[in-house]
């Protein structure tokens, strides 16, 4: 069974269609990266999953239940960290962690102590005195200290320093080892690349792409640099080759990843002397998706 199933969900705010027939499936035990430009509907999706927003149409199932009508029961089995944590100014970090964990239905004392140490958080400070990064750590400790089935992270590491970011990645690794499901919205591509089994890209309220990173790379183009003995003019005729440039016997072009064999075979016939090919970096992948630069 899948941990999260979202089908054709529409959510409007006045004239704005924040989710416009959105689909997303997250398998149980999967760490799923959730990517998209600012304002594309990531936080709206999270808030729908939390039962804070009521969808206009479509179908949402989470942990086998309905996030709107069974919110409180389902929330005992999940933990959530928002990207912009607001806390009660007069409560200390330690009090907030206890409060949220108790309301969720209990916390793991040993884990709480261990996480406070790992994240170097002083639990006696009042929330109004915490920096943004420290407020974020309070929410992270409160979420990670609970043993639950599903973790919803909405840009959880914004404001964290690189050491703490690394701690977070380790913590998610532990969650994965324990068999928990994670939906991780993030702009930090290295984080997504390191942690996620599958990713989904949302754009303007629509799921633009879902799959493993390998799948996504396969869908896009590989950049090829080659030197050939004879001019490579004939390449333009090979199916799937784009942006061909020639200079002094060196040729650079992009090729659809599933056509790379044809292109290399063609180059071999021209007396190939040197060849470099690199798959698209994650950045290229996202820039293509976010900016709609991928040609048909």
């Amino acid at each position: 069974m899948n941990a999260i199933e979202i089908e054709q969900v529409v959510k409007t705010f006045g004239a704005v269609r924040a989710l416009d027939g959105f689909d997303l499936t997250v398998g149980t035990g999967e760490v799923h990266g959730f990517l998209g430009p600012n304002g594309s509907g990531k936080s709206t999706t999270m808030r729908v999953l939390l039962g804070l927003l009521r969808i206009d149409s479509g179908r949402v199932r989470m942990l086998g239940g309905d996030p709107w009508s069974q919110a409180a029961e389902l929330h005992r089995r999940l933990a959530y960290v928002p990207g912009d944590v607001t806390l009660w100014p007069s409560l200390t970090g330690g009090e907030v962690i206890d409060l949220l964990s108790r309301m969720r239905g209990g916390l793991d004392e040993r884990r709480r102590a261990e996480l406070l140490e790992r994240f170097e958080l002083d639990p006696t400070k009042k929330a109004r005195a915490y920096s943004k990064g420290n407020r974020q750590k309070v929410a992270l400790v409160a979420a990670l200290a609970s043993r639950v089935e599903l973790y919803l992270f909405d840009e959880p590491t914004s404001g964290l320093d690189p050491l703490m970011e690394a701690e977070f990645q380790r913590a998610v690794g532990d969650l994965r080892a324990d068999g928990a499901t994670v939906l991780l919205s993030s702009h930090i591509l290295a984080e997504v690349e390191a942690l996620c089994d599958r990713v989904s890209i949302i754009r303007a309220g629509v799921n633009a792409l879902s799959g493993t990173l390998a799948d996504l790379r396969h869908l896009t183009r590989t950049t090829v640099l080659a030197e050939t003995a004879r001019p490579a003019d004939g390449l333009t005729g090979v199916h799937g080759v784009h942006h061909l440039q020639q200079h002094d016997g060196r040729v650079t072009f992009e090729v659809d990843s599933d056509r790379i064999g044809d292109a290399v075979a063609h180059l071999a016939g021209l007396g190939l002397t040197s060849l470099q090919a690199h798959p698209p970096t994650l950045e290229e992948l996202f820039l293509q998706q976010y900016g709609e630069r991928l040609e048909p």
Partner: protein
Amino acid sequence: MNALTGTGHLVRLVLRRDRVRLPLWVGGLTGLTVVSAAAVQDLYSTPVEIAAYRATVQDSASGRLLNGVPYAVDTVAGITAYEVTSIAGLVVALMVTFTVVRHTRGEEETGTAELLRSTVTGRHAGTAAALLVAIGAAFLAGALDAAVLWAIGLPGAGSLLHGAALAGVGLVFTASAAAAAQLTSSARGALGVAGAVLALLFVVRGVGAVRDDWLVWLSPFGWQDATRPYGDRLWWPLLLVVALTAVVAGGAAWLTAHRDFGSGLVPPRAGRARATAALGTPVGLAWRVQRGLFLGWAVGLTLFAALFGSLGREVVTLIESNPEMADVMGLSLDDVVRSYFAYVIPFLGVLASAYAVASALRLRSEELGGRAEAVLATGTSRLAWALGGVAVTVLGTLAMVVLMGVALSTSHLLLSGEDALFGRLVGATVQQAAPVLLVASTAFLAHGWFPHRALLAWAVFAFALLEAYLGELLSMPAWLADLSPFRHPAGVPVEPFTPWPLLVIGALAAAAVAVGLAGLRRRDLSSA
């Protein structure tokens, strides 16, 4: 670049942000003055009516407590001033207090002031801009006050002085709010300090007026009365206003220059590393969030109630000094004391409903501040979360009325030695819980359906206050006045107690809360 660089830009920003609020304050106050002044002209148009008014107010303890010493009430102009001055002074004081705190400590707390301070603005520019706008609004209120009183037919020179004295009250409280904003690191704390100072000075003036002694000179509200605009027309009390404003504003500026940005005078202390067992349920959280609110109001309202109780004896003294009047009105001493209490106890109830509305609206600020989201993402349902808030408002209100009832009855007992009324005074105060909760229930109702508009619940409180303070003067039609729930509980100790009004009011309140909760369960959760 000096400490005031950029003030002009910030003034425009403040005006832009308050382009609805300030006109509402000033327009509302002016409208209220017009309506009550016009009512006075109608009610007291003959010498007989004026003489009767004078005879009543000279010796009315509750009148002096709320309106100060009556001057020149043998003229219709004097009566007008006596009826409109105090409430106008209070409204202006509240207006400048909210305005100043919102644009000084409020901005600093949310962090927007940090962005502004990073631009080319001087250290004092933010405070100066807030003060300029608040003072401007107070002067505008004063000018309109003078204009409408003059237009209604009162003497011009006196009206001008009346308006100037009103602006003067605004001046003093502008400075006091600016100083309060330096003391605490939160806007709520600053409002609490400024509000406590305001209430204290109002009470000092009232007690001084009842005792007819020098205490009135300790309060800016007393100086406002002392100008006697339609009697001796004294301008010099305004010098006290200017002097005190200069001193307090100077103190605020000194504090600004000697503290760190974002901090108050009290350095932050470390707190508990673990939550107590009570924190971990919706009720426990709501209580923790509202603890300061409850304690602040409990101290203030208990003192108010004790004060009102202590004046029961002054009522006797006033009547004893003027036995003919009691004869004329055909009242025994006992009757007078009872009707005094039957009048002031519902008034205490109205004041307590301000606490209850503030408490009920914490659900709204928790939601819009994004903190409710953290709670609702746990195993806590919306209903449980909201009921935690409702429970704290209900229990807080009950505790509040019991405290007030005991304080009022005890101080009356101690000062008069009269124990016959003790139980009935406690009961009369405690039964105010029903109308108080009905007012608060409108906040829950509005929050359930329209969280952004829930502040409208303050309008319900304002109406109840207006009805209690000015209802008779304004000759409100009965159906309108009866909309105030405080008119319906039995007028103990004059009338015998009956439970029916309380049951009806309580049922209405429960229904309003239920409808609000139903709305809350259906709608999207709001943020910011």
